[in-house]
């Protein structure tokens, strides 16, 4: 039996607070704990971190923040749980987890985490369980409530149905980010009928399922997801900016470790360069504006690789790209030599980037057990059917992973010989 501390009766606000939202129209807050969490300094910090990192280099409208998305996930979750007969504690657990699920994100997480080996989900758990405003607010519900929220986000909470509302192939997080990112980037791909999906959600045998009449809305959702990944999230211009940013972090770290005399010393990043434990306070102070400030200053550094990469990022002089087949791995070795021969360091000026996505997957009978929960339809006779068994559209893209490999390089620096080799000649 899972032990639990006594929960205090949650306080309701005297009157409901309502935020205007371009995606969900309104975001409704009734619980005081949610209001307090929104006003906490750790949550407000998310205003200063963009949801889509470098995507605004491609889609200039994509300036929306992680706070913006977090409020949206909360609202989707609020609408979901209002349909389910959960206890008040689990309802609150779902709402708080939805609101806080991204609170550990730092600036440009995708680039940053690769170089400094940090994990935003672990930071989320540290923020929730550490000595923070968020932690103290959650403790007002019960002493073990922060731990429970942390477990839901870490997927180790015993009630898997609650976890699946936040993280699964069909969850509040994805529903919000697809709609929101489509809205702010201005693309037409990410749209689907969320209202219809929410209206047709059911709980059967401790699983969230959708009534069979919602199948076409689910098809739209899966296809939207597929298109958003390839048209927005994996856009090569966005990826090029990410590659350069990653190289900047990599160079800064290498220079620091070699005792380079920085013209502008990167005090807030030193802990990251040392690969050691990073104090929570310091992590929370590290924002996008910090990164942009240093990159601006580093444009004037004497290290030519470092200043060049920073100027490329700041002034959007991005790397060009060519399609690449990894089977041609001998070319990679040749390219390294050609770059070195021309005096260009390939560690900083040649990168293979390989995004991939699996739009939807499910466990097939006869295969080894898999780690993904399928999307289930409730059929008119009450039985449950896996989505791709009923939908030919979903079946067409189920279990099919798409890979893409591109080489990124500075077209303005490389010789014609290198360019020709990159083109596969």
């Amino acid at each position, binding site marked *: 039996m*899972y*032990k639990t501390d006594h929960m205090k009766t949650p306080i309701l606000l005297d009157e409901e607070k309502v935020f205007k939202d371009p995606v969900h129209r309104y975001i409704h807050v009734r619980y005081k704990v949610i209001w307090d969490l929104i006003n906490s300094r750790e949550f407000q910090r998310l205003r200063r971190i963009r949801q889509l990192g470098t995507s605004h280099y491609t889609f200039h409208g994509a300036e929306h923040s992680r706070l913006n998305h977090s409020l949206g996930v909360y609202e989707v979750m609020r609408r979901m749980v209002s349909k389910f007969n959960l206890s008040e504690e689990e309802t609150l657990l779902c709402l708080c987890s939805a609101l806080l699920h991204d609170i550990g994100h730092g600036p440009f997480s995708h680039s940053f985490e*690769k170089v400094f*080996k940090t*994990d935003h*989900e672990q930071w989320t758990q540290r923020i929730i369980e550490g000595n923070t405003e968020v932690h103290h607010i959650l403790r007002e519900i019960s002493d073990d409530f922060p731990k429970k929220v942390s477990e839901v986000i*870490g*997927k*180790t909470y*015993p009630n898997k149905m609650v976890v699946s509302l936040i993280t699964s192939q069909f969850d509040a997080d994805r529903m919000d980010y697809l709609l929101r990112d489509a809205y702010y980037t201005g693309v037409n791909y990410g749209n689907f009928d969320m209202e219809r999906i929410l209206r047709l959600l059911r709980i059967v045998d401790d699983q969230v399922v959708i009534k069979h009449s919602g199948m076409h809305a689910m098809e739209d959702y899966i296809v939207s997801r597929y298109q958003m990944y390839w048209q927005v999230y994996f856009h090569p211009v966005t990826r090029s900016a990410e590659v350069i940013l990653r190289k900047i972090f990599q160079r800064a770290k290498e220079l620091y470790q070699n005792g380079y005399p920085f013209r502008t010393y990167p005090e807030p990043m030193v802990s990251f360069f040392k690969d050691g434990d990073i104090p929570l306070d310091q992590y929370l102070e590290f924002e996008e504006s910090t990164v942009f400030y240093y990159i601006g200053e580093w444009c004037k550094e004497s290290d030519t690789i470092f200043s060049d990469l920073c100027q490329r990022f700041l002034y959007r002089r991005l790397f060009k790209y060519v399609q690449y087949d*990894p*089977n041609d*791995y*001998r070319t*990679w*070795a040749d390219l390294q030599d050609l770059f070195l021969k021309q005096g260009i360091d390939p560690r900083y000026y040649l990168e*293979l980037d*390989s995004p*991939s996505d*699996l739009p939807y997957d499910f466990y097939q009978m*006869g*295969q*080894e*057990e898999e*780690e993904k929960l399928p999307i289930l339809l409730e059929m008119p006779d009450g039985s449950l059917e896996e989505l791709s068994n009923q939908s030919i559209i979903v079946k067409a893209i189920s279990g099919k*992973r798409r*890979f893409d490999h591109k080489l990124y390089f500075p077209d303005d620096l490389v010789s014609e010989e290198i360019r020709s080799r990159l083109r596969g000649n």
Partner: protein
Amino acid sequence: MLQEHAKVLHLLEQAGEVVGRKKLQKIVYITQKLKFEFNQRFQFHFYGPYSETLSLEIEELCQLGFLEEMLEDKGNYNVYRYQITDKGKDFLAHIPVEMGNMLPLLDKLNQSTARFLELVSTVFYFENLSRAEVEEKVFTLKAKSNYTKEEITEAYHWIEELKKLV
């Protein structure tokens, strides 16, 4: 280029072969926990620590022909058997990785079952919790697996032994 893929391939070259997707996931996770330079991000899933990235890398290595994946019929269930191919060995010759000697560790891990490695990796995942809390996690999150207290003790003992092999 594909450095993380190359590391997985290198592990499989040293291990000879690994039978089972779950087993391969757990072997990489435990090896990572024992400070070998694998960078995949693991999260807690139905069968313990699981990396979507690793799953993707394995699939891609198979598509590229660097790894061979064979489906084996075990009667009432099927498993996948993984082996490096000659092309995979040639790839490693061109894209070398330096991982140190993983062989003693891999030998021991490979001789165990996927079920037990799932328990060992779960104990590793919750290494910051007390023994009592770990037991509670195992009994609640893995209720269907029916692990016993003795098996948990054995998992702790195993971890100590594994550390000596590094």
